[in-house]
């Protein structure tokens, strides 16, 4: 049972469809891994359904129904396209760890080395090319350079655990940080850690070297 869950407001924004693509992907990954948040999301979507029923309707223009039928007939004459699923090449994962289904439509780059025992992979979202989403894979005890954020940073731990002085996050846990949080995440001693991260704006690293590296990674 994991202990760090997304804030209620983040779940609400997800249900209402108001999150950017990157944060939405990371949240979907958490929901996939967390039965409790999955149950809450079902309630919030049901709330969306109830609110749709209760909204004051706005009539459509005359002929809207027959135009819709025409579109359906026109679409039926095309064979459905094969689903655009990009699963082809995937970087390796530790034995026993599966890719979450939330990443099915994404293309994921090979692991790039960014330091001793530290690797990074870019996640490309078909629906938003400029989203800053990536995977970070670091060995036991490794530490990410100290940084703060410009905008929201959301993280889902896929494997292993890290801590940053605030608390410890384990596989299945979710974290949200913003410009008020300055931290230096460190992988726990038990083993390596893999996280899925989405950034709203670039990270602000303290050190020059880390800053240059961040710029190269596009984060």
């Amino acid at each position, binding site marked *: 049972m994991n202990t760090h869950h997304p804030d*209620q*407001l983040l779940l*609400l*924004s997800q*249900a*209402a*469809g*108001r999150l950017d*693509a990157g944060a939405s992907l990371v949240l979907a990954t958490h929901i996939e891994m967390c*039965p409790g948040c*999955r*149950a809450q999301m*079902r*309630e919030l*979507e*049901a*709330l*969306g*359904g*109830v*609110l*749709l*029923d*209760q*909204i*004051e*309707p*706005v*009539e*459509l*223009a*005359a*002929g*809207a*129904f*027959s*135009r*819709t*039928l025409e*579109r*359906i007939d026109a*679409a039926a004459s095309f064979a*459905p*396209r*094969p*689903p*655009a*699923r990009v699963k082809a090449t995937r970087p390796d994962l530790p034995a026993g760890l599966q890719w979450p289904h939330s990443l099915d439509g994404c293309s994921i780059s090979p692991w790039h080395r960014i330091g001793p025992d530290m690797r990074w992979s870019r996640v490309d979202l078909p*629906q*938003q090319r400029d989203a800053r989403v990536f995977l970070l894979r670091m060995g036991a005890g490794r530490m990410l350079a100290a940084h703060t954020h410009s905008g929201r940073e959301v993280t889902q731990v896929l494997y292993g655990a890290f801590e940053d002085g605030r608390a410890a996050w384990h596989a299945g846990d979710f974290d949200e940080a913003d410009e008020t949080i300055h931290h230096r995440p460190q992988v726990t001693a038990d083993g390596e850690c893999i996280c899925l991260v989405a950034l709203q704006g670039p990270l602000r690293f303290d050190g020059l070297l880390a800053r240059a590296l961040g710029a190269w990674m596009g984060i």
Partner: protein
Amino acid sequence: MGMNTLTAPLPLSLRLDAQVARRPAPGHLSVMSSPSRPSRMPTPDELSAWIRAVADPGDRAAFAALFRHFAPRIKAFLMRGGADAALAEELAQEAMVNVWRKAASFDPARAQASTWVFTIARNLRIDYARRGLDGAREQSAGDAADELTDELADAAPTPPEQLAAGQIEHGVREALGKLPEDQALLLRLSFYEEQPHADIAKALSIPLGTVKSRIRRAMEQLRRALGHLQP
């Protein structure tokens, strides 16, 4: 066509008077001029039966009934979210095309009809925001194919957590009805508006800084009314 332009949000006074839940307006769509039909809210079971009839055997009368209930609501939902009338009209039709296309993957054990249609309309709004009108259409055509493969993959028995879609929607409806009006309003605006937090601050004349805690309290209240124990 200049349809992919979002208008400035309506003046708040105009939007706020449209927020009270009412029964559907008596005006019917011109195409479904069946004067004998009373204009009452269809039950969730009726809506489900119509969607199943659309899936098989492609029943157009059932689709017309769904259209009459949902299309004007989807249009309203999109307009509240910042779309102008022409764009909302266009996307509402597209959403109903998706209802037709995806009807076969509708599973009332997973989500009730209104919830299912809400997610279709919401996803279309997301696709439009990210990719524009053509992108949204393309995406929804691709989704329809995905749904089909998902359905084949999901032949496994439904896990227990998914057994109670009807109870969830019913419970949420009741719980929402028990909330004080200002809390229900907070939740409505959170779903409808394009800039929920800013809009809520304006609508309730409260500082932006307290909006989040107010929404959080409304959500806790809803969960309490749903029977969850929350401090």
